[in-house]
Structures are given as structure tokens and as C-alpha cells.
């Protein structure tokens, strides 16, 4: 395993040092990434977090119009309650704090513990659970939170920036999640620095369908196929769960090791698929947004927009990874 690290143990801290040096708009304190300018009185604070290895999620989305703080855990390991507590207190501007939590047992438990312990702050929580690959959620920990997290953080962040109260920000976050679905496909495994070798072996001619974002194998293995077919697998799964209609916000997301050139190929197929269903891709993102270290593959996330969500998506944002309107 060759990785650009000094040591697996220091990876997260070293990267945070780099992040703080690269982005004057961020401040890093005790494994919490904050907006440099601090909380704005009266504004609802947005806190998210999760394991590292998904960059730019979450720290890359801290800034105007999006998150107030991110809590990065170890690689693929949710943060500990202390981080979440520190972040929650640091961003509270008196209007309460929304926790954006991806639905993984670890994230849920650690955020819950933190919320309980922060009894001095009004905390609401939204669970992101958009991954349609997890179907029988009665017999699972429920659907995973994946790409829709970006949409939830952007859209709720925009409403918070407008000064909306906590209940409203939580509502729009829920609404965004409810309207969003994702599906991911891996061409290769990733290699975590601590394990030092690929999490799973994937033969040359096969892909993993229905992966999450932690380098775990998917729901099934299937023969490798052209981009058009792989895109259709993802879109079929999404469309089967939430029929595509109206204006869509679509993200074609790289898992970290996929060339942007290929993501555009996938996007072309996804866009054509949506058009074929009579829907319109009104807004889009193509690139690495929610990654699994060096995994090759992609995920598609679709959100059925309404006027409010469109307006909030278009609102100004200024973070390391998403920026427009400022």
C-alpha cells in the first residue's frame, strides 16, 4: 500500500492541518472544523460529521450557506461525542443547532449521546437515509446516508443562513432527504491506511452494485458493463423507489479514484435516462463529493426539486468544495 501519509495514526490530524492552512475561512480546533468567523447570533447552527475518508464531505462543506462545523472521525469511523458536543456548543448562536446525521449505527449513537449531553443547547437532528440499495430496512440498520447528505447540508444551510428558526431548518432538511435517493457502484475496492490492503477483492470482470461509502462490498456482484448499462442499473433502482418526475437535482459522484472524464460519461447517461422518463435535470453536480478514499466507482443521487428547494440550492454558498454566488 502506497499512500501520501506520514503514518496511518496521524493521517486525520495531518490532513486537518493542511485543510486549515489551505482554507483561511476554516478554523480547526480539537478535531472540529469551524467557520473562521464563528457563530452568527440568531442563526441556527448546522453541525455534521462522520468518518474521514469521504472528503470533501464534511469539512469541505463548512462555510457560508452550508455547515457551521464538521466533526471528522478516524477513517470510516464516526466521530466521538466529545467532538460533536464541542462543535454544537461552538456554533450555537442562540437559535439552536441542527445535527445532520448519516444513518449509520455509529454516527447515530455518537450524535445522540452528544445531543443528550449538550443539554444547554437546543438540538434537533435530521437523519439522512437515501441509499436505495438497502431495501429490506426492517431487517437492517435502515438505509444508509450517502450522497443526499450534500443536498441536505446545502439546502438546510441556505435556509439557516436566511435566519429561519430551527424547526424550519429541520423541516427543510427532512424534506430534502425525503425527496432524495442514491445508488452506488464500485469498480474497485478502496484501501484503508490502517488495514493496508483492499477491503474486498473484486475480479477484473466484475463490479459491486449497491455499495455504501465505507469501502464495504455492495448488495450484489455483477459482470462489468459499459457506462450506459451501469448508469441504468443505478437509475432503475432509484426510479423504482421514487419515480423520476419534474425538475431534478442530480449528482454524479466519484468515489475518489475515478477520473472526472468518466464521471461526465456517466452523467450523460444519467441525464438521458431521466429525460427518457420525462423528467428534467434542472441542477447538477459532477465530481468527487462523497468519496470512499481511493475507490473507483460512482454514485448517483437524485432529488426531486420543488420551488423552495431549488431556491435554496441556488442560494449563495462559499465553502472549500461548493461555491457560487459569492
Amino acid at each position, binding site marked *: 500500500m502506497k499512500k501520501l501519509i506520514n503514518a496511518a495514526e496521524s493521517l486525520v490530524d495531518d490532513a486537518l492541518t493542511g485543510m486549515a492552512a489551505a482554507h483561511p475561512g476554516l478554523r480547526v480546533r480539537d478535531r472540529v472544523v469551524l467557520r473562521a468567523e464563528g457563530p452568527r447570533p440568531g442563526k441556527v447552527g448546522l453541525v455534521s460529521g462522520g*468518518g474521514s475518508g469521504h472528503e470533501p464531505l464534511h469539512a469541505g462543506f463548512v462555510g457560508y450557506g452550508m455547515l457551521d462545523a464538521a466533526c471528522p472521525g478516524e477513517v470510516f469511523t464516526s466521530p466521538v461525542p466529545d467532538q460533536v458536543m464541542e462543535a454544537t456548543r461552538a456554533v450555537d448562536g442562540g437559535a439552536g443547532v441542527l445535527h445532520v446525521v448519516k444513518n449509520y449505527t*455509529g454516527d447515530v449513537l455518537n450524535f445522540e449521546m452528544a445531543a443528550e449531553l449538550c443539554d444547554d443547547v437546543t438540538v434537533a437532528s435530521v437523519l439522512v437515509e437515501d441509499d436505495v440499495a438497502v431495501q429490506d430496512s426492517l431487517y437492517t440498520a435502515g438505509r*444508509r446516508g450517502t450522497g443526499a447528505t450534500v443536498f441536505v447540508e446545502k439546502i438546510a444551510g441556505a435556509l439557516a443562513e436566511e435566519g429561519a428558526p430551527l424547526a424550519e431548518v429541520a423541516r427543510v432538511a427532512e424534506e430534502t432527504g425525503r425527496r432524495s435517493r442514491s445508488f452506488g457502484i464500485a469498480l474497485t475496492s478502496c484501501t484503508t491506511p*490502517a488495514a493496508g490492503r483492499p477491503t474486498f477483492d473484486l475480479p477484473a470482470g466484475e463490479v459491486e452494485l449497491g455499495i455504501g461509502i465505507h469501502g464495504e*462490498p455492495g448488495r450484489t456482484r455483477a459482470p462489468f458493463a459499459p457506462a450506459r448499462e451501469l448508469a441504468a442499473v443505478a437509475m432503475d433502482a432509484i426510479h423504482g423507489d421514487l419515480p423520476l418526475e419534474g425538475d431534478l437535482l442530480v449528482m454524479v459522484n466519484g468515489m475518489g479514484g475515478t477520473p472526472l472524464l468518466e464521471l461526465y460519461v456517466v452523467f450523460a447517461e444519467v441525464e438521458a435516462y431521466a429525460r427518457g422518463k420525462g423528467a428534467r435535470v434542472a441542477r447538477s453536480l459532477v465530481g468527487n463529493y462523497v468519496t470512499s478514499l481511493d475507490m473507483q466507482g460512482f454514485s448517483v443521487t437524485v432529488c426531486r426539486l420543488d420551488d423552495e428547494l431549488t431556491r435554496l440550492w441556488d442560494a449563495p454558498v462559499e465553502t472549500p468544495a461548493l461555491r457560487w454566488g459569492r
Partner: protein
Amino acid sequence: MGAETVAGGGGGLDTAFFVAWLEEAAGEIARQRDRLTELDAAIGDADHGTNLDRGFSEVLRALRETPPASPAQALMAAGATLIRRVGGASGPLYGSAFRQMGKALDSGEAPGTAVTPAAFAEAFGAGVVAVERLGKAAAGDKTMIDALAPAARALAQTVRDGLGTGEALARAARAAADGARATVPMTARRGRASYLGERSVGHEDPGAASSALIVAALTTAASRTAAG
């Protein structure tokens, strides 16, 4: 702590024993770190070994920095440290288990008092219940519960049967090991292995495996403190 503490039927388990338990558990987790991570790679995200090793190293450091004055303190400190340092699913779950065990033993006795095997068996059971509550998992869901719950039952049974502490701990260890092994054919229903559905069959649950190590450390701690 004398030899009779663990060999005798009614001997107490003192602070040194619990410190030894945590030390033995930490040592075994460090040694088996890569195996635990590999188990997690098969049906999870390849971090269970590093997670627990990081957490238990911190437990050792915490115990050294602030030597506990009672069994309850030792266990509560361990639980708090695991919660503060591990993260992931296993951090809050193991952390709550140890904290709950500690709380259950924290009967306001004078520091330094040894606890009875019966009290420990009850506390252990309370710890397992804490995990079940927090994780909303039941037996058969292919989680740490499948190793911890049989261990708790074995402890309670040996106490009821009036067997010696050594025997009690050995049976608990065996029950946990059997329980961990029994997770192999199960389909996961909790934690991230559940996303794999049927594909989780055929692999031992990493959390059940680490639970078996932690329970087995009770017996090595017992013989070490008995011998020492």
C-alpha cells in the same frame, strides 16, 4: 487479591482484578487487532480492530494516569474512555456496557471493596442490557450481543449453581467464544453488516469476536491476579 478470590466459591473480585481484566483485554485486542479488522473488512468497513485497539490503549493510559479506587471506578473510567475515544458503533456500545457495569457495582461501598461474583454477574448482565437497549439488537442479529448475552447467562447460571469464580469465568469465556462462532451462519440485521443481507452469511461478526476476547480476558486476569 489472594488465590481464593478466584478459586473459592464466594471470594470477592477486587479493583486489581478489574484493572487486570482491562489490561488483559487491551493486550489481546492489540494482538488480534488485524484479525478483527479483517473480519470487519469482510462484512463491514475494516476498522473494528483499529477502533478497539485505539480505545483500549487509551483505557490503559487512563487507568495508569488515574488509578481507580474501586471496581466500579475502573469500569466506569473504561466505559467513559471508550465512548470518548473509539467512535463508530462499537465505541458507544462497549463504552455503555462498561459504564453500566461500573454503575451497577457502584453501590456506595467504601473504595477498595471487592465485589462478589454474584454482584459482578448481575453487573455484567446490566452491561449487556445497556448494549441491547442502545443498539436495539437482539440475539441472532449477528452482533456483539451474540457473544455477550450467552456470557452473561453463563455467569448468572454458575453463580446460581454456586460454582467457583474460576469456573464461572471459564464458562463465560466458553459461552462467548461459542456465541461468536455461532454468528458465522447468521444473516446480519444490525450494524453495517446488515446492508450486505445474505452476503453477511459465512463470516464471523467482528464485534462478537472482540466480545469473546474481552470475556476470555476475565479468565487470564483471574489467573494472573490469583498467581500474582
